[in-house]
């Protein structure tokens, strides 16, 4: 029932005060009601959040590792880039809702598949950004290394990597937002509740069935919290690594 209709019914007096309030609670609960639901459902919510967090961390870390590896491969040769890149794009362009059943068939439902979905959703920005960073090294600095007779390995370690670092980190930041989303979506499509493995996504489906809107908002709040946690962590690492020298982190001094 739409909010407008409730008001209409209310005006005509066909709904009692209490009925109207119940409907209001389903559509937009008070923050206090969300808090009450969180406390009430804590024995379900927190283990589920823990499961989701675990899947998101595994997905996020693999996205960083594999994303970085792929970016190094892509930037090392034009031929590799031409042959690999389209496939990465293929994976990225298939909607997860279609890809998920295939993953479930290949890997079976379960926490590991949830982590895979989290990875699949979050690795692309790292690949794209890091590749960009690794291939846009300042030409003058490359010449400096040539004059200094630097080896290929030295050039990569002491020039290309540090030069690509800000690009890599902004890819990681996008992935930090996507990894928990991926873990929750994965939970819905390829997760399992067996053995207490269900995550926030699984709970959300249950609460939807119960029309327990306050608890759904609690799920949303937990998902947000997770995203903030991930991004906050990446921001901190970024500050540690860049605040001395990179334009993005300058504080007006010098």
């Amino acid at each position, binding site marked *: 029932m739409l909010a407008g209709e409730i008001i209409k019914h209310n005006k005509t007096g066909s709904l009692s005060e209490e009925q109207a309030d119940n409907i209001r609670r389903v559509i937009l609960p008070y923050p206090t009601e969300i808090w009450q639901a969180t406390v009430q459902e804590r024995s379900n919510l927190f283990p589920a959040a823990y499961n989701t967090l675990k899947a998101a961390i595994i997905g996020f870390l693999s996205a960083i590792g594999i994303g970085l590896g792929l970016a190094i491969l892509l930037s090392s040769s034009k031929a590799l880039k031409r042959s690999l890149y389209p496939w990465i794009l293929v994976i990225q362009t298939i909607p997860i809702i279609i890809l998920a059943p295939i993953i479930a068939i290949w890997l079976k439902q379960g926490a590991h598949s949830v982590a895979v979905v989290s990875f699949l959703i979050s690795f692309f920005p790292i690949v794209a950004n890091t590749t960009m960073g690794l291939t846009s090294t300042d030409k*003058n*600095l490359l*010449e*400096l*290394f*040539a*004059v*200094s*007779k*630097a*080896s290929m390995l*030295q050039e990569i370690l*002491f*020039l290309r990597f*540090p030069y690509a*670092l800000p690009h890599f980190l902004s890819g990681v930041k996008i992935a930090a937002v996507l990894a928990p989303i991926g873990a929750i979506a994965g939970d819905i499509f390829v997760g399992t509740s067996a053995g207490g493995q269900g995550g926030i996504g699984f709970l959300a489906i249950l609460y939807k069935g119960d029309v327990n809107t306050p608890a759904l908002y609690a799920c949303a709040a937990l998902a947000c919290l997770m995203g903030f946690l991930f991004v906050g962590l990446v921001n901190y690492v970024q500050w540690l690594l860049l605040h*001395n*020298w*990179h334009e993005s982190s*300058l504080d007006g001094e*010098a």
Partner: protein
Amino acid sequence: MVEENAIVQLKKLSKRFDQDQDVLSDIDLEVKEGEFISFVGPSGCGKSTLLRMLAGLTSVSEGALLIDGATPTEPRDDLYLVFQEANLLPWARVRENVELPMKLQGKPKITRQAVADAIVELVGLQDAADRFPRQLSGGMKMRVSIARALSVSPRILLLDEPFGALDAITRNQLNEDLLKIREKDPFTAFFVTHSVAEAVFLSTRIVVLESNPGRIADIIDVPHSYPRTVEFRESPEYFDLLARTSKSLRQQKGESE
């Protein structure tokens, strides 16, 4: 300074990027150890290209480029280039930037630190050794760039308009300092510049190039002995050479600026 052996010989040296367009043509030049050669000329005369050929960054199209009587087959350890921009690693402190060429050569950390300390002091940056490039002025950045080049004690130093972006006062100061450094730590210099004053003050010889194609139009000797001080800049001899070089430069056909 003993000036006997030719350290660099250019024989009928030519460079073309396209088939029919010569950037440099028939460059003949013999440079003795310890000389300070400046290249001046209109833009597009191939000064920078010449330097890049010496550095091994671009190939010779025709003729010969000999260092110590032989064509260099691989990049040399005793040659270094100072770029147009300071070209520092932004994530590395001054000291780390100075140490970079030694690090790339695989020298042990203790040696690197000792050499870097000495050179940082030589260029007058001891108070800024732990700063990052963004915290330095343009002149200081250039000093770091020169210190970096000196860290490998090069016999040949190539300088590609290193002071072009600096104001006149800083430029004069760095000119004087460059000569002082050279007294302590001698090297043969090839110096590209747009500034006639700079060329006269620093050089043993000034090579005036014309453009389209780049050829040697004139070579002007600067007989004044080293060490050269500020008084040289105020001597009639200096103004004479300034006038001669400017006149020679004016006579060169080139893209008008």
